[in-house]
């Protein structure tokens, strides 16, 4: 592919991506930043975990994304008695009185499955998490003595942060497979809150989503354009050094002079960001640069995705884990302020 052709292709895709973003923003108001991050994850080929209170619009957001993205969309609810097989197939007695086995939500659409939404993922058992991990990592699953592949699949999971009873904390290995963890909050702007309360348009979600243009992004082509984006955005030597410093700071923040209130910084970190984590961070940052119309990375691109890609990959010692919500933002802000570039 010639350079000009590649440039034109990337520019076209960028316009489509921005159109996709604008379209989703029509239905989901006050969540511009999470929508931008989901867009980044789509083009970086990463899976996304959503976390937030009940009724803040997580499901609406994902349904809007699925509609505008095109392809097949499936959703399952995590429950304590859900088993891995429930995702792959289900058995029942058909109308002829004979037992029948049908593909489950994962297999039902075959390789056309583009968005799989696992609601309340932490209510499912670890066995289910294991299956999900394999699908996320390999875009494939074994069933009926064969392999099924899902080349276009993007997984979104949701974790309710209000209730913790009868839940299974997702292991760090599983969390590391998610490119991003997004925190969904109720919009703070009073005008947006008023619109959500009083504008009938937002009261009927199905009708609201029907107004969105479906299939704005040709999802089947995304796996081809994604590596082109990664190759087209340059990371200079200075930026690489900066990213390395950021990574090191997540592992040894005390070495960068970082202090957090009464926290013993030498004991705070149990495990810093993983190699896979920082690799995903850079993939996301490259997409952010591309969406910004540049063919080179700047530190601000990394900042845009730093919290979302790294926050869930830093593990605190148990004594500090209970204060995670308060400490993690402070830690990441401190790292951004301490590590300079160039």
């Amino acid at each position, binding site marked *: 592919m010639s350079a000009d052709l590649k440039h034109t292709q990337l520019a076209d895709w960028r316009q489509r991506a921005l159109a996709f973003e604008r379209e989703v923003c029509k239905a989901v108001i006050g969540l511009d930043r999470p929508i931008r991050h989901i867009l980044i994850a789509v083009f970086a080929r990463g899976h996304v975990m959503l976390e937030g209170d009940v009724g803040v619009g997580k499901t609406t957001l994902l349904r809007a994304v699925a509609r505008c993205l095109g392809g097949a969309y499936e959703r399952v609810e995590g429950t304590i008695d859900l088993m891995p097989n429930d995702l792959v197939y289900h058995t029942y007695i058909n109308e002829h009185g004979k037992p029948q086995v049908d593909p489950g939500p994962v297999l039902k659409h075959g390789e056309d499955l583009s968005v799989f939404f696992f609601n309340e993922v932490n209510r499912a058992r670890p066995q289910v998490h294991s299956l999900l991990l394999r699908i996320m990592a390999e875009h494939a699953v074994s069933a009926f003595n064969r392999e099924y592949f899902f080349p276009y699949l993007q997984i979104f999971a949701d974790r309710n942060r209000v209730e913790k009873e009868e839940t299974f904390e997702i292991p760090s290995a599983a969390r590391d497979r998610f490119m991003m963890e997004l925190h969904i909050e109720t919009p703070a702007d009073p005008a947006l809150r008023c619109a959500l309360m009083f504008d009938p348009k937002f009261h009927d979600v199905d009708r609201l989503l029907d107004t969105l243009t479906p299939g704005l992004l040709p999802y089947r082509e995304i796996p081809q354009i994604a590596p082109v984006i990664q190759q087209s955005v*340059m990371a*200079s030597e*200075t*930026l690489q050094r900066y990213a390395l410093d950021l990574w090191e700071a997540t592992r040894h923040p005390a070495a960068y002079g970082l202090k957090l209130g009464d926290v013993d910084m030498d004991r705070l970190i149990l495990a810093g960001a993983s190699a896979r984590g920082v690799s995903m961070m850079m993939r996301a940052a490259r997409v952010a640069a591309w969406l910004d119309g*540049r063919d*080179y*990375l*700047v*530190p*601000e691109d990394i*900042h845009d995705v730093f919290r979302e890609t790294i926050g869930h990959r830093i593990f605190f010692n148990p004594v500090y884990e209970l204060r995670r919500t308060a400490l993690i933002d402070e830690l990441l802000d401190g790292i*951004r*302020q*301490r*590590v*300079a*570039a*160039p």
Partner: protein
Amino acid sequence: MRKLTLPLASLLAVVVTFAWVLRANDRTVPARFESQDGHTATHTMGDLITRDVVVSIHGGQIDPASLPVPGPITEWAEIRKVETDSADDRTRVRITYQVFYGVRGPETAELPPLRLRVTDAGGSTLVEVPALPVSFMPLIPPGIPDEKVTIRATRPAERRPFAPYGRWLSLGVGLGAVAGFYLLWLRGLLPLFSGPLPFRRACRELQQLVNQPSPGRAACLILHRALNETAGAAVFANGLEAFLTRHPEFADLRELLDKFFALSRQLFFAEGSDDGVYAFCLKLARQARRLERRRS
């Protein structure tokens, strides 16, 4: 009753008249010499002699022209100092003489008499102060011929207390030092006390780059470091507004700082050229240094 009234009135008139006469007489008491120091002790050549003369003046004052004036008065004495001090109806005149009377045996001489004029509302009165006899002893002991005289050893210098001078000297030096520090602080020449002056250091470091072949990247790095040090955190292009909010003294540099971040971005992240970057950085650093001094 009438028999008693007349003698009483006469008696009262006599008393009043007598008192008036007494008062009138009191007013007319003339100025007069009262006393002077005796000075019976013996003196030798070079001694200072203080003569205190007390004159009762009764509301008048000694005519300054009648006071002796410093200078030689005889071939062996001179007046060094004349002071007057009045209290009540008396004036004390203190005259300090120095005598140079060389004698070979004990002798007596007189300091000359004084004639002081006291003036008051009624005119002037001359007050005669008698001469003052003074005894002299020879410097050379009796019976020793001149050629046998040996010069006395030089008297050691009188010991004077220096403690008060030391205290004053310390106080002066201390105040001077404080004033000096204050002036240096005002000029921003005391980095230790005026806080960090990152742009001043940046200017110095930038000037050292002047002869290097491609100083653009190094210049940018120096300026980034100065900005970060001023902010106390890493400053990025998207954090410029927050930086200017916390450091409004640099608000005038907003455009230049914007341009600086754009240049730096091109240079470090887009691998652009460093043409003109050094000159721009130097100009920005100098302006920032000026504003930084104003703040400090």
